[in-house]
């Protein structure tokens, strides 16, 4: 199989993960479900980065480095978002994002 077709298949897989993440963020009412959707989106982006680092001569190292940065950012984002969700749960005893309407301290 020629490299372009292979690259396109990997990009299609990344697009599938991205779309799953977006739909997950849109449909889940649980705040942690929304967080799971964000993780799926970041994974789709990572697949694209690594696929380009394999198939494009100019992104041989850059693709992998950016994937590493995305992984670290995702870890930080998950930690802060979960802290916010737990705090919201402590204050409101719910994790339903539809009830999170007021932005007060």
């Amino acid at each position, binding site marked *: 199989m*020629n*490299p*372009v077709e292979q*690259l*396109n*298949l990997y*990009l*299609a*897989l990344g*697009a*599938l*993960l*991205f*779309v*799953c993440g*977006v*739909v*997950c963020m*849109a*449909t*889940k*009412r649980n705040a*942690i*479900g929304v967080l*799971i*959707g964000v*993780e*799926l989106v970041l*994974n789709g982006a*990572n697949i694209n980065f*690594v696929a380009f*680092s*394999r*198939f494009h*001569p100019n992104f*041989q*190292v850059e693709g*992998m*480095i950016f*994937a*590493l*940065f995305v*992984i*670290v*950012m*995702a*870890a*930080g984002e*998950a*930690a*802060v978002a*979960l*802290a916010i*969700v*737990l705090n919201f*749960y*402590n204050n409101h005893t*719910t*994790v*339903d994002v539809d009830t999170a309407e007021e932005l007060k301290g």
Partner: protein
Amino acid sequence: MFELQPFMFWLIATLTGLCAIATVISQNIVRSATWLLFTLAGTSGIFFLLGADFVGAIQLLIYVGGTMVLVVFGVMLTAQGPFINMKTSGAEWAISIVAGILLFSVLCFGTWGHFSAPQATAMDDPKDSHQAATLAQAMTGAGYGPIYKPVQRERIHYLLPFEIVSVHLLVVLIGAAYLARAKRRKGAAT
């Protein structure tokens, strides 16, 4: 002739895609988190298949080992009675699925339209790339390239982003601990 690479790609990609779809459509949040675990493991398999050993290993370590533990902890701390199964109404599902299929077709259409030109080429055999060493060279600003070749003249520095990421993780550590701590002086503040 039987080729291992496309077979493995289709196997792992099918499993990963199915797990991702199951993550979206399962209503139970615990099952959703479990499907996400399999999706992340499948993604690391894709990385190994692409020859990115180091990134795949880091994905397994940080994502599957760290982030998933965080998410499961969040699920366990908040999963009580009505919050395990929170239903989404049928109309919202219909709109979301139509929008998702449209978005996916737009992305695939754009991919096949743009990258049909023969500009992408496969890299050399991933077996003989010293990835951890190459990435470390790029991260510390020593330039990169296979370590048995002379270092390229125009050097690519990722030292500053690397430091920023380190400081970012420290800030996240402190911020998450500050946000999640138990507040006990609510009445005293008035």
